[in-house]
Protein backbone atom coordinates (compact mmCIF):
# COMPACT_ATOMS: atom_id res chain seq x y z
CA UNK A 1 0.00 0.00 0.00
CA UNK A 2 2.81 2.36 0.89
CA UNK A 3 5.24 1.18 -1.78
CA UNK A 4 4.41 3.90 -4.30
CA UNK A 5 4.32 6.67 -1.71
CA UNK A 6 6.85 9.41 -1.33
CA UNK A 7 9.53 8.85 1.29
CA UNK A 8 9.86 11.66 3.81
CA UNK A 9 12.55 10.11 5.99
CA UNK A 10 15.13 7.46 5.25
CA UNK A 11 17.26 5.86 7.92
CA UNK A 12 19.96 3.59 6.56
CA UNK A 13 22.28 1.34 8.51
CA UNK A 14 22.18 3.61 11.53
CA UNK A 15 24.27 2.75 14.59
CA UNK A 16 24.23 5.27 17.40
CA UNK A 17 25.70 5.43 20.87
CA UNK A 18 25.79 7.41 24.07
CA UNK A 19 29.17 8.12 25.60
CA UNK A 20 29.83 4.58 26.72
CA UNK A 21 27.10 2.38 25.31
CA UNK A 22 26.04 1.39 21.85
CA UNK A 23 22.25 1.69 21.80
CA UNK A 24 21.21 1.40 18.17
CA UNK A 25 22.59 -1.24 15.82
CA UNK A 26 22.25 -1.04 12.03
CA UNK A 27 18.71 0.30 11.94
CA UNK A 28 17.21 0.88 8.50
CA UNK A 29 13.75 2.34 8.18
CA UNK A 30 11.79 4.27 5.57
CA UNK A 31 8.99 6.61 6.60
CA UNK A 32 6.39 7.55 4.01
CA UNK A 33 4.60 10.86 3.68
CA UNK A 34 1.32 11.03 5.55
CA UNK A 35 1.60 7.77 7.46
CA UNK A 36 1.57 7.04 11.18
CA UNK A 37 4.46 4.76 12.04
CA UNK A 38 4.56 3.42 15.59
CA UNK A 39 7.83 2.19 17.03
CA UNK A 40 7.06 -0.27 19.82
CA UNK A 41 9.47 -1.91 22.24
CA UNK A 42 10.36 -2.25 25.89
CA UNK A 43 12.49 0.11 28.00
CA UNK A 44 16.06 0.19 26.83
CA UNK A 45 15.29 -1.10 23.34
CA UNK A 46 16.52 2.14 21.78
CA UNK A 47 13.22 3.73 20.69
CA UNK A 48 13.81 7.13 22.29
CA UNK A 49 17.44 7.15 21.19
CA UNK A 50 16.30 6.70 17.61
CA UNK A 51 14.04 9.74 17.98
CA UNK A 52 16.94 11.71 19.47
CA UNK A 53 19.15 10.70 16.57
CA UNK A 54 16.56 11.96 14.07
CA UNK A 55 16.55 15.34 15.88
CA UNK A 56 20.36 15.31 15.81
CA UNK A 57 20.37 15.59 19.62
CA UNK A 58 23.98 16.07 20.65
CA UNK A 59 23.81 13.55 23.50
CA UNK A 60 23.66 10.81 20.85
CA UNK A 61 26.59 10.21 18.56
CA UNK A 62 26.00 8.57 15.22
CA UNK A 63 28.69 5.94 14.64
CA UNK A 64 27.56 4.62 11.28
CA UNK A 65 24.87 5.11 8.68
CA UNK A 66 22.76 8.11 7.82
CA UNK A 67 19.40 9.80 8.32
CA UNK A 68 17.91 11.64 5.34
CA UNK A 69 14.96 13.99 5.67
CA UNK A 70 13.51 14.74 2.21
CA UNK A 71 16.73 15.60 0.33
CA UNK A 72 18.80 16.67 3.34
CA UNK A 73 21.21 14.29 5.03
CA UNK A 74 20.51 15.26 8.67
CA UNK A 75 23.53 13.36 9.93
CA UNK A 76 25.83 15.57 7.80
CA UNK A 77 24.22 18.91 8.61
CA UNK A 78 25.77 21.58 10.82
CA UNK A 79 24.04 22.40 14.10
CA UNK A 80 22.71 25.67 12.71
CA UNK A 81 21.14 23.94 9.70
CA UNK A 82 19.57 21.26 11.91
CA UNK A 83 18.06 24.00 14.05
CA UNK A 84 16.30 25.40 10.97
CA UNK A 85 14.70 22.03 10.30
CA UNK A 86 13.50 21.49 13.87
CA UNK A 87 10.17 23.03 14.73
CA UNK A 88 9.00 24.06 11.26
CA UNK A 89 9.81 20.85 9.40
CA UNK A 90 10.33 18.29 12.17
CA UNK A 91 8.35 18.70 15.40
CA UNK A 92 8.89 16.86 18.67
CA UNK A 93 6.55 16.11 21.57
CA UNK A 94 7.82 14.29 24.61
CA UNK A 95 6.36 12.30 27.49
CA UNK A 96 6.69 15.04 30.06
CA UNK A 97 4.78 18.09 28.80
CA UNK A 98 6.06 20.26 31.64
CA UNK A 99 9.58 19.86 30.31
CA UNK A 100 8.53 21.77 27.17
CA UNK A 101 7.43 24.90 28.97
CA UNK A 102 8.58 27.33 31.59
CA UNK A 103 6.16 26.54 34.44
CA UNK A 104 5.74 30.11 35.66
CA UNK A 105 5.40 32.08 32.42
CA UNK A 106 2.07 32.73 30.77
CA UNK A 107 1.23 30.33 27.96
CA UNK A 108 0.54 33.06 25.37
CA UNK A 109 3.97 34.57 26.04
CA UNK A 110 5.54 31.18 25.40
CA UNK A 111 3.54 30.66 22.21
CA UNK A 112 4.68 34.08 20.97
CA UNK A 113 8.24 33.01 21.63
CA UNK A 114 7.70 29.79 19.68
CA UNK A 115 6.54 31.76 16.64
CA UNK A 116 9.28 34.37 16.95
CA UNK A 117 12.16 31.97 17.39
CA UNK A 118 11.12 30.20 14.19
CA UNK A 119 10.83 33.45 12.23
CA UNK A 120 7.03 33.47 12.07
CA UNK A 121 4.40 35.97 13.16
CA UNK A 122 2.19 35.29 16.16
CA UNK A 123 -1.08 33.93 14.87
CA UNK A 124 -3.70 33.90 17.64
CA UNK A 125 -6.48 32.57 15.38
CA UNK A 126 -4.34 29.61 14.39
CA UNK A 127 -3.74 28.73 18.05
CA UNK A 128 -7.44 28.97 18.79
CA UNK A 129 -8.32 26.68 15.87
CA UNK A 130 -5.89 24.06 17.15
CA UNK A 131 -7.13 24.46 20.72
CA UNK A 132 -10.65 23.79 19.50
CA UNK A 133 -9.70 20.50 17.85
CA UNK A 134 -7.89 19.51 21.05
CA UNK A 135 -11.04 20.15 23.08
CA UNK A 136 -9.48 23.04 24.99
CA UNK A 137 -12.44 25.24 25.79
CA UNK A 138 -12.11 28.95 26.54
CA UNK A 139 -8.75 29.48 24.77
CA UNK A 140 -8.45 33.11 25.94
CA UNK A 141 -8.49 32.01 29.55
CA UNK A 142 -6.05 29.14 28.97
CA UNK A 143 -3.60 31.39 27.12
CA UNK A 144 -3.43 33.64 30.17
CA UNK A 145 -2.70 30.72 32.50
CA UNK A 146 0.67 29.33 33.49
CA UNK A 147 1.66 25.69 32.87
CA UNK A 148 1.85 24.82 36.58
CA UNK A 149 -1.88 25.52 36.86
CA UNK A 150 -2.81 22.84 34.33
CA UNK A 151 -3.51 19.12 34.69
CA UNK A 152 -1.32 16.54 32.92
CA UNK A 153 -3.82 15.96 30.10
CA UNK A 154 -4.25 19.68 29.50
CA UNK A 155 -0.49 20.32 29.53
CA UNK A 156 0.08 17.56 26.99
CA UNK A 157 -2.61 19.10 24.74
CA UNK A 158 -0.85 22.47 24.97
CA UNK A 159 2.45 20.79 24.05
CA UNK A 160 0.72 19.21 21.03
CA UNK A 161 -0.69 22.62 20.07
CA UNK A 162 2.77 24.19 20.38
CA UNK A 163 4.13 21.60 17.95
CA UNK A 164 1.25 22.00 15.48
CA UNK A 165 1.21 25.83 15.31
CA UNK A 166 4.42 25.65 13.28
CA UNK A 167 2.81 23.15 10.93
CA UNK A 168 5.65 20.58 10.87
CA UNK A 169 5.66 18.01 8.09
CA UNK A 170 7.08 15.28 10.30
CA UNK A 171 6.08 14.97 13.93
CA UNK A 172 8.05 12.83 16.38
CA UNK A 173 6.10 11.75 19.47
CA UNK A 174 7.94 10.04 22.31
CA UNK A 175 5.58 8.23 24.74
CA UNK A 176 3.29 11.25 24.76
CA UNK A 177 0.40 9.61 26.59
CA UNK A 178 2.12 7.23 28.97
CA UNK A 179 1.75 9.65 31.89
CA UNK A 180 -2.00 9.99 31.27
CA UNK A 181 -5.03 7.93 32.31
CA UNK A 182 -6.35 5.46 29.73
CA UNK A 183 -9.50 7.45 28.96
CA UNK A 184 -7.65 10.78 28.70
CA UNK A 185 -4.92 9.12 26.60
CA UNK A 186 -7.52 7.87 24.12
CA UNK A 187 -9.08 11.34 23.84
CA UNK A 188 -5.69 12.99 23.29
CA UNK A 189 -4.81 10.41 20.62
CA UNK A 190 -8.07 10.94 18.75
CA UNK A 191 -7.56 14.71 18.81
CA UNK A 192 -3.97 14.32 17.64
CA UNK A 193 -5.18 12.17 14.71
CA UNK A 194 -7.75 14.84 13.81
CA UNK A 195 -5.00 17.48 13.63
CA UNK A 196 -2.83 15.12 11.62
CA UNK A 197 -5.66 14.67 9.12
CA UNK A 198 -6.16 18.43 8.76
CA UNK A 199 -2.48 19.21 8.28
CA UNK A 200 -1.42 16.00 6.54
CA UNK A 201 1.40 15.49 9.00
CA UNK A 202 3.55 12.38 9.00
CA UNK A 203 3.90 10.93 12.49
CA UNK A 204 6.49 8.70 14.10
CA UNK A 205 5.10 7.61 17.45
CA UNK A 206 7.28 5.86 20.00
CA UNK A 207 5.34 3.85 22.56
CA UNK A 208 5.63 0.76 24.73
CA UNK A 209 1.87 0.29 24.41
CA UNK A 210 0.98 -2.09 21.63
CA UNK A 211 -2.74 -1.53 22.19
CA UNK A 212 -2.34 2.17 21.56
CA UNK A 213 -0.30 1.48 18.43
CA UNK A 214 -3.13 -0.73 17.19
CA UNK A 215 -5.54 2.21 17.45
CA UNK A 216 -3.55 4.71 15.41
CA UNK A 217 -0.75 3.11 13.38
CA UNK A 218 -0.62 2.44 9.65
CA UNK A 219 2.60 0.53 10.18
CA UNK A 220 4.32 -0.80 13.31
CA UNK A 221 8.05 -1.32 13.81
CA UNK A 222 9.08 -3.54 16.72
CA UNK A 223 12.38 -2.66 18.37
CA UNK A 224 14.41 -4.98 20.55
CA UNK A 225 17.95 -4.52 21.85
CA UNK A 226 18.72 -1.66 19.50
CA UNK A 227 17.45 -3.38 16.37
CA UNK A 228 14.23 -3.28 14.43
CA UNK A 229 13.19 -6.91 14.46
CA UNK A 230 10.02 -6.53 12.43
CA UNK A 231 8.23 -3.78 10.53
CA UNK A 232 4.94 -4.20 8.70
CA UNK A 233 1.35 -3.01 8.31
CA UNK A 234 -0.23 -2.75 11.78
CA UNK A 235 -2.88 -5.41 11.19
CA UNK A 236 -0.33 -7.87 9.77
CA UNK A 237 1.98 -7.55 12.76
CA UNK A 238 -0.82 -8.01 15.24
CA UNK A 239 -2.50 -10.91 13.44
CA UNK A 240 0.52 -12.69 12.05
CA UNK A 241 3.76 -11.72 13.80
CA UNK A 242 6.86 -13.32 12.27
CA UNK A 243 9.57 -12.55 14.80
CA UNK A 244 9.83 -14.55 18.05
CA UNK A 245 10.18 -11.44 20.17
CA UNK A 246 7.11 -9.83 18.57
CA UNK A 247 5.12 -12.98 19.28
CA UNK A 248 6.14 -12.91 22.93
CA UNK A 249 5.37 -9.20 23.22
CA UNK A 250 1.88 -9.67 21.80
CA UNK A 251 1.12 -12.62 24.07
CA UNK A 252 2.27 -10.69 27.15
CA UNK A 253 -0.24 -7.85 26.70
CA UNK A 254 -3.09 -8.22 29.23
CA UNK A 255 -6.46 -8.99 27.64
CA UNK A 256 -9.76 -7.60 28.81
CA UNK A 257 -11.65 -10.65 29.96
CA UNK A 258 -14.42 -11.65 32.26
CA UNK A 259 -13.15 -14.71 34.16
Amino acid at each position, binding site marked *: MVADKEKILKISGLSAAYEDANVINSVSLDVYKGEVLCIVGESGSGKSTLIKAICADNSVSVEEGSITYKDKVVTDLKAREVQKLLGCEIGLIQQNPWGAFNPIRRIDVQFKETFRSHGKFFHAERIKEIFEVLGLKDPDKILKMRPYELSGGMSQRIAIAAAFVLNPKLLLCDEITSALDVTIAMQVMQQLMELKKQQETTIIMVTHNLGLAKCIADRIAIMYEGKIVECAEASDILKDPQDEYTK*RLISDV*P*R*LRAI
Partner: protein
Amino acid sequence: MDIILEGKKLNKSFKTGEKKTQVLCDVDFFLKEGEVLGIVGESGSGKSTLLRVASGLEKPDSGELLYKGRDYTGSSPRQTGEFLQILFQDAESSFDPRMTMERSIMEAGRGKKDKEELLKLVKMAGLDEELLKRKPGKLSGGQCQRMAIVRAFYSGAEILLCDEMTSALDVSTQAQVMQIMQRLKKEGKLSAVFVSHDIALVSEICDRIMVMKDGRCVEEGETPEVIGSPKDDHTKELIESARKQSIG
Protein backbone atom coordinates in the same frame (compact mmCIF):
# COMPACT_ATOMS: atom_id res chain seq x y z
CA MET B 1 -15.44 -17.72 52.17
CA ASP B 2 -15.01 -15.60 55.26
CA ILE B 3 -14.41 -11.88 55.09
CA ILE B 4 -10.79 -11.25 56.03
CA LEU B 5 -10.59 -7.47 55.59
CA GLU B 6 -13.30 -4.87 55.70
CA GLY B 7 -13.67 -1.11 55.64
CA LYS B 8 -16.87 0.68 56.62
CA LYS B 9 -17.84 4.26 55.80
CA LEU B 10 -14.24 5.39 55.40
CA ASN B 11 -13.64 9.11 55.04
CA LYS B 12 -10.35 10.84 54.45
CA SER B 13 -9.49 14.41 53.54
CA PHE B 14 -6.25 16.26 53.02
CA LYS B 15 -5.64 19.91 53.78
CA THR B 16 -3.39 22.10 51.70
CA GLY B 17 -3.38 25.56 53.22
CA GLU B 18 -6.99 26.70 53.47
CA LYS B 19 -8.21 24.17 50.94
CA LYS B 20 -9.64 20.88 52.11
CA THR B 21 -9.90 18.03 49.62
CA GLN B 22 -12.15 15.11 50.38
CA VAL B 23 -10.31 12.09 48.98
CA LEU B 24 -12.50 9.29 50.32
CA CYS B 25 -16.26 9.72 50.86
CA ASP B 26 -18.06 6.98 52.79
CA VAL B 27 -16.18 4.17 51.07
CA ASP B 28 -17.14 0.60 51.99
CA PHE B 29 -15.14 -2.40 50.86
CA PHE B 30 -14.58 -6.02 51.85
CA LEU B 31 -12.14 -8.74 50.89
CA LYS B 32 -12.87 -12.44 51.30
CA GLU B 33 -10.22 -15.01 52.12
CA GLY B 34 -8.51 -16.33 48.97
CA GLU B 35 -10.01 -13.60 46.82
CA VAL B 36 -8.45 -10.89 44.68
CA LEU B 37 -10.34 -7.60 44.66
CA GLY B 38 -9.47 -5.13 41.91
CA ILE B 39 -9.84 -1.40 42.36
CA VAL B 40 -9.79 0.69 39.19
CA GLY B 41 -10.26 4.37 38.52
CA GLU B 42 -8.43 7.31 37.06
CA SER B 43 -5.65 9.28 38.79
CA GLY B 44 -6.97 11.13 41.81
CA SER B 45 -9.99 8.87 42.28
CA GLY B 46 -8.77 7.78 45.73
CA LYS B 47 -7.54 4.23 44.96
CA SER B 48 -4.12 4.65 46.52
CA THR B 49 -5.47 6.58 49.50
CA LEU B 50 -7.87 3.75 50.21
CA LEU B 51 -4.95 1.29 50.33
CA ARG B 52 -2.90 3.62 52.51
CA VAL B 53 -5.81 3.98 54.92
CA ALA B 54 -6.43 0.21 54.96
CA SER B 55 -2.75 -0.44 55.70
CA GLY B 56 -2.50 2.08 58.54
CA LEU B 57 -0.12 4.39 56.65
CA GLU B 58 -2.86 7.05 56.85
CA LYS B 59 -5.50 7.39 59.55
CA PRO B 60 -9.08 7.73 58.33
CA ASP B 61 -11.02 10.83 59.48
CA SER B 62 -13.90 8.53 60.28
CA GLY B 63 -14.99 4.98 59.57
CA GLU B 64 -14.01 1.55 60.71
CA LEU B 65 -11.41 -1.01 59.61
CA LEU B 66 -11.77 -4.67 60.48
CA TYR B 67 -9.42 -7.65 60.16
CA LYS B 68 -11.34 -10.92 60.60
CA GLY B 69 -14.05 -8.97 62.38
CA ARG B 70 -11.60 -7.32 64.78
CA ASP B 71 -11.42 -3.53 64.77
CA TYR B 72 -7.95 -2.24 63.91
CA THR B 73 -8.78 1.38 63.09
CA GLY B 74 -5.92 3.63 64.17
CA SER B 75 -3.32 0.84 64.27
CA SER B 76 0.21 1.71 63.20
CA PRO B 77 1.79 0.19 60.09
CA ARG B 78 3.98 -1.86 62.41
CA GLN B 79 0.87 -3.43 63.94
CA THR B 80 -0.96 -3.97 60.66
CA GLY B 81 2.25 -5.48 59.23
CA GLU B 82 1.42 -8.68 61.11
CA PHE B 83 -1.42 -9.48 58.75
CA LEU B 84 -1.01 -7.29 55.68
CA GLN B 85 1.77 -6.06 53.43
CA ILE B 86 1.65 -3.33 50.86
CA LEU B 87 3.39 -3.57 47.48
CA PHE B 88 4.17 -0.28 45.80
CA GLN B 89 4.79 0.73 42.20
CA ASP B 90 8.40 1.54 42.99
CA ALA B 91 9.57 -1.63 44.71
CA GLU B 92 13.20 -0.56 44.78
CA SER B 93 12.57 2.33 47.14
CA SER B 94 10.73 0.04 49.57
CA PHE B 95 14.06 -1.68 50.32
CA ASP B 96 16.87 -0.15 52.35
CA PRO B 97 19.52 0.69 49.73
CA ARG B 98 22.36 -0.21 52.12
CA MET B 99 21.10 -3.69 52.93
CA THR B 100 21.32 -6.88 50.91
CA MET B 101 18.01 -8.38 49.81
CA GLU B 102 18.48 -11.26 52.23
CA ARG B 103 18.88 -8.93 55.21
CA SER B 104 15.93 -6.76 54.19
CA ILE B 105 13.67 -9.76 53.79
CA MET B 106 14.87 -11.45 56.99
CA GLU B 107 14.15 -8.25 58.87
CA ALA B 108 10.55 -8.32 57.67
CA GLY B 109 10.25 -11.76 59.27
CA ARG B 110 10.30 -10.20 62.77
CA GLY B 111 13.04 -12.31 64.25
CA LYS B 112 12.17 -15.42 62.24
CA LYS B 113 15.32 -16.82 60.61
CA ASP B 114 14.15 -19.50 58.24
CA LYS B 115 16.60 -19.58 55.33
CA GLU B 116 14.94 -22.68 53.92
CA GLU B 117 11.57 -20.95 53.62
CA LEU B 118 13.25 -17.89 52.12
CA LEU B 119 14.95 -19.97 49.42
CA LYS B 120 11.69 -21.75 48.68
CA LEU B 121 9.92 -18.42 48.19
CA VAL B 122 12.74 -17.05 46.02
CA LYS B 123 12.47 -20.15 43.83
CA MET B 124 8.69 -19.80 43.66
CA ALA B 125 9.19 -16.21 42.42
CA GLY B 126 11.39 -17.51 39.61
CA LEU B 127 14.46 -15.71 40.95
CA ASP B 128 18.05 -16.85 41.27
CA GLU B 129 19.10 -17.16 44.93
CA GLU B 130 22.34 -15.37 44.05
CA LEU B 131 20.26 -12.17 43.86
CA LEU B 132 19.73 -12.31 47.63
CA LYS B 133 23.31 -11.15 48.10
CA ARG B 134 22.70 -8.00 46.09
CA LYS B 135 21.49 -4.60 47.19
CA PRO B 136 18.29 -3.20 45.61
CA GLY B 137 20.18 -0.86 43.26
CA LYS B 138 21.73 -3.89 41.55
CA LEU B 139 18.40 -5.48 40.66
CA SER B 140 16.09 -4.69 37.76
CA GLY B 141 12.60 -3.28 38.39
CA GLY B 142 10.94 -6.64 37.79
CA GLN B 143 13.39 -8.48 40.05
CA CYS B 144 12.83 -5.92 42.82
CA GLN B 145 9.05 -6.28 42.58
CA ARG B 146 9.34 -10.07 42.77
CA MET B 147 11.63 -9.72 45.82
CA ALA B 148 8.95 -7.51 47.38
CA ILE B 149 6.42 -10.33 46.88
CA VAL B 150 8.90 -12.74 48.49
CA ARG B 151 9.29 -10.36 51.43
CA ALA B 152 5.53 -10.00 51.84
CA PHE B 153 5.06 -13.77 52.03
CA TYR B 154 8.11 -14.30 54.23
CA SER B 155 6.70 -11.82 56.74
CA GLY B 156 3.74 -14.15 57.15
CA ALA B 157 1.20 -11.56 56.04
CA GLU B 158 -2.10 -13.02 54.91
CA ILE B 159 -3.17 -10.06 52.82
CA LEU B 160 -1.37 -8.22 50.02
CA LEU B 161 -2.34 -4.67 49.15
CA CYS B 162 -0.91 -3.97 45.69
CA ASP B 163 -0.72 -0.36 44.56
CA GLU B 164 -0.02 -0.16 40.79
CA MET B 165 2.62 -2.83 41.41
CA THR B 166 3.37 -3.43 37.73
CA SER B 167 2.77 0.04 36.27
CA ALA B 168 6.46 0.86 36.02
CA LEU B 169 7.32 -2.44 34.34
CA ASP B 170 7.45 -3.46 30.69
CA VAL B 171 4.66 -5.72 29.48
CA SER B 172 6.93 -8.78 29.41
CA THR B 173 8.25 -8.12 32.91
CA GLN B 174 4.72 -7.38 34.04
CA ALA B 175 3.65 -10.74 32.62
CA GLN B 176 6.34 -12.51 34.69
CA VAL B 177 5.21 -10.80 37.90
CA MET B 178 1.56 -11.55 37.13
CA GLN B 179 2.38 -15.22 36.50
CA ILE B 180 3.60 -15.48 40.09
CA MET B 181 0.47 -13.76 41.35
CA GLN B 182 -1.68 -16.15 39.28
CA ARG B 183 0.18 -19.17 40.64
CA LEU B 184 -0.25 -18.00 44.24
CA LYS B 185 -3.91 -17.42 43.53
CA LYS B 186 -4.40 -20.91 42.11
CA GLU B 187 -2.72 -22.39 45.17
CA GLY B 188 -5.23 -20.47 47.28
CA LYS B 189 -2.47 -18.52 49.01
CA LEU B 190 -3.48 -15.11 47.82
CA SER B 191 -5.92 -12.70 49.41
CA ALA B 192 -5.22 -9.35 47.81
CA VAL B 193 -6.50 -5.94 46.91
CA PHE B 194 -5.12 -5.06 43.49
CA VAL B 195 -5.16 -1.38 42.58
CA SER B 196 -4.45 -0.49 38.96
CA HIS B 197 -5.53 1.93 36.26
CA ASP B 198 -5.27 -0.92 33.74
CA ILE B 199 -8.71 -2.55 33.67
CA ALA B 200 -7.55 -5.29 31.26
CA LEU B 201 -4.85 -6.36 33.71
CA VAL B 202 -7.34 -6.23 36.58
CA SER B 203 -9.82 -8.36 34.62
CA GLU B 204 -7.18 -11.07 34.23
CA ILE B 205 -6.53 -11.65 37.92
CA CYS B 206 -9.42 -10.26 39.98
CA ASP B 207 -12.55 -12.07 41.14
CA ARG B 208 -14.33 -8.85 41.93
CA ILE B 209 -13.89 -5.27 40.73
CA MET B 210 -14.63 -2.01 42.44
CA VAL B 211 -14.63 1.19 40.36
CA MET B 212 -13.77 4.48 42.04
CA LYS B 213 -14.35 8.05 40.96
CA ASP B 214 -13.89 11.26 42.93
CA GLY B 215 -13.37 9.40 46.20
CA ARG B 216 -16.48 7.25 45.92
CA CYS B 217 -17.14 3.70 44.88
CA VAL B 218 -19.36 4.04 41.80
CA GLU B 219 -19.68 0.36 40.95
CA GLU B 220 -18.81 -2.96 42.51
CA GLY B 221 -19.40 -6.53 41.41
CA GLU B 222 -18.05 -9.85 40.18
CA THR B 223 -15.56 -9.38 37.31
CA PRO B 224 -17.72 -10.90 34.52
CA GLU B 225 -20.63 -8.75 35.61
CA VAL B 226 -18.68 -5.47 35.72
CA ILE B 227 -16.78 -6.09 32.46
CA GLY B 228 -19.72 -7.66 30.64
CA SER B 229 -22.50 -5.30 31.67
CA PRO B 230 -21.17 -2.18 33.36
CA LYS B 231 -23.81 0.08 34.86
CA ASP B 232 -21.99 3.25 35.73
CA ASP B 233 -21.01 5.69 32.94
CA HIS B 234 -17.48 6.02 34.22
CA THR B 235 -17.02 2.23 34.19
CA LYS B 236 -18.38 2.10 30.64
CA GLU B 237 -15.88 4.75 29.57
CA LEU B 238 -12.96 2.83 31.14
CA ILE B 239 -14.01 -0.42 29.49
CA GLU B 240 -14.57 1.25 26.13
CA SER B 241 -11.03 2.72 26.19
CA ALA B 242 -9.63 -0.68 27.12
CA ARG B 243 -11.62 -2.40 24.36
CA LYS B 244 -10.31 0.01 21.73
CA GLN B 245 -6.77 -0.83 22.78
CA SER B 246 -7.41 -4.55 23.14
CA ILE B 247 -5.33 -6.55 20.69
CA GLY B 248 -7.61 -9.57 20.62
